[in-house]
């Protein structure tokens, strides 16, 4: 009886505050990083995202979960306009960062991607040296002027990515000579070297072994002190371990956006509960 009343209250809450999580995570930061409103996306004729509303908070890990083809990766790519590279994609709605619409004609996608970095599913270091992998982007963006500055920045990025001790003696070796997990951390170092605000991670551990996965998860926990992290994952345990907030996607819609602990202990919607308890996915 009481439960039903509470349920109804929460539902009305969520409809009033579109994009807000159902339950607040009191240990999380709540300064707004990216605000998404009524976002729709079509691949040609087929609609992949439907009326997405989501507030992503700064210096948190936000996990996007859901069955295959639910649109979570597509949504992630909306945040730094990587979908622009795919022919036939059309988006409508608002993705706002710092009070600016990232899809506006005035917005330069190069500027956007400098502030919103990305780590991909399969580690994809440049076929250049480890040093060059990290140093390339800061140099390109004129962030460093002297050699010493550049060395310092590379070392800091590799330290932050937890890779420095493993590679400091072989910085001139090709990035592709590292193991898969090291390559992925190199890609993270490459992303944080340009000092972005947000790092997008598209299933960053799905191609890695369990030990490398654990290393990356620890790293995400450390990195959220400096960066806002949005990660797509197929692995629900991973979302439960690393994320402050979790959004559950299904057929292109956000079914539930909730405090991670609540999402996995007491999901608000039936669909999320079915997915989390393994009834489909």
């Amino acid at each position, binding site marked *: 009886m009481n439960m039903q009343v509470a349920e109804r209250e929460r539902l009305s809450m969520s409809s009033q505050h579109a994009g807000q999580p159902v339950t607040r995570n009191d240990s999380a930061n709540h300064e707004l990083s990216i605000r998404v409103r009524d976002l729709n996306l079509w691949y040609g004729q087929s609609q992949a995202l439907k009326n997405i509303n989501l507030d992503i908070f700064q210096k948190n890990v936000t996990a996007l979960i859901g069955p295959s083809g639910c649109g979570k990766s597509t949504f992630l790519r909306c945040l730094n306009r990587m979908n622009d590279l795919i022919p036939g994609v059309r988006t409508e709605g608002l993705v706002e960062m710092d009070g600016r619409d990232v899809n506006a004609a005035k917005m330069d996608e190069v500027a956007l991607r*400098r502030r919103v*970095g*990305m780590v*991909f599913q*399969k580690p994809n270091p*440049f076929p250049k040296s480890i040093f060059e992998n990290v140093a390339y*982007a800061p140099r390109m963006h004129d962030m460093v002027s002297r050699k010493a500055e550049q060395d310092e920045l590379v070392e800091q990025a590799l330290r932050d990515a937890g890779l420095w001790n493993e590679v400091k003696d072989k910085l001139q070796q090709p990035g592709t000579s590292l193991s898969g997990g090291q390559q992925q951390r190199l890609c993270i170092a490459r992303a944080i070297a340009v000092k972005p605000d947000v790092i997008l991670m598209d299933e960053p551990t799905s191609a890695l072994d369990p030990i490398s996965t654990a290393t990356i998860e620890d790293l995400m926990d450390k990195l959220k002190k400096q960066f806002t992290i949005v990660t797509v994952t197929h692995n629900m345990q991973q979302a439960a371990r690393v994320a402050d907030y979790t959004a559950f996607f299904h057929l292109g819609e956000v079914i539930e956006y909730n405090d991670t602990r609540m999402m996995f202990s007491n999901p608000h919607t039936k669909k999320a509960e079915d997915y989390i308890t393994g009834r489909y996915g």
Partner: protein
Amino acid sequence: MSQSFDDISAQLKRRHRKSSRLKWISMGALGLAGLFLVLFFADMLSKGLPAFQQAYIEVELDYNEDAQRMGRAALDPEVSRLVSRSFERLIPGMLRDDPGLIGTTEQRWVLADSEVDQYLKGHRSRLSEDERETVDELVESGRLELQFNTTFFTEGDSKMPERAGILAAAVGTVMTMLVTLAIAFPIGVMTAVYLEEFAPDNRFTQLIEININNLAAIPSILFGLLGLAIFINFFGVPRSSALVGGMTLALMTLPVIIIATRTALRSVPDSIRHAAFGVGCSRWQVVRDHVLPLATPGIMTGSIIGLAQAMGETAPLIIIGMVAFIPDVGASFTNASTVLPAQIFTWAGEPERAFVEKTAGGILVLLSILIALNAAAVVLRKKFERRW
């Protein structure tokens, strides 16, 4: 009911026979192709290698007054028939340049006449019986012999086969190829970069793509007609020049380079592009810093093969006047010049027996260059081949 192994084997026998028959047929085809190749090379080598040797004769030169007007006067009448007339014609000039020589004598090895050369090599020769005897005596006494033919590599074409060389054609080929490369490489690579990395995929770009592919299949003589009509008649580029030849061959090489470059660009995995876009590269930076360096070996290989193809081309050059008698090494890109295959074509039409070996020798030189170029392409590809 299941079948026993024996039943199945009996059925399989026919299939096995068929496959072994196919195997033998294909091996036979390969053997036949190999045989033709061996025959071709054996023929070329046996005909062409003698071209790298030439008969030289040691004569006593008496620089008397008459030799200033007629070179033959400097020679003993008995051997003058055996000496190349091209050398005799040089004597008055030598005396004009250095009058101090007049009244002196000199022992010297000079080019022998091509009839002597052919006789020594055992070919048909128009020497008379007396002359053959003289030649035999001279060989006996060591004053007439076959030596390495430097003239072949240091002279241009000549109507006298003993003096005909391929230097003019080789220099012409180098200059023509420089022009071809300078035009076709940048245009071809940039066209491919645009089509592959920048252009939207629509009807218009598809139409361009189909036409580029068709261009690669157009008979090369049509490019010669195009070069004649546009470069020579419209723009007034000097005909027979390395410049117009290079421009015409560039038209022919362009589609090859475009197609090779597009293939090389397409083989660069998209993950590299995504990584570069992800760190905030503009499209041009993605191409310049990441895609092009990875595609370079493929582009180089394709360009070298395109160039090798252009280097062996004769048909379009006939029309723009590069198949001609060119005795002098071209001094500039606008001078009349010829190229190796055109030189071979010219020699093949000469009536003298001695030109047969010049023709084959020219083919050997051209083939060696082409094989070297293709080997360079293979080495480049192997050396820079990358795995992701």
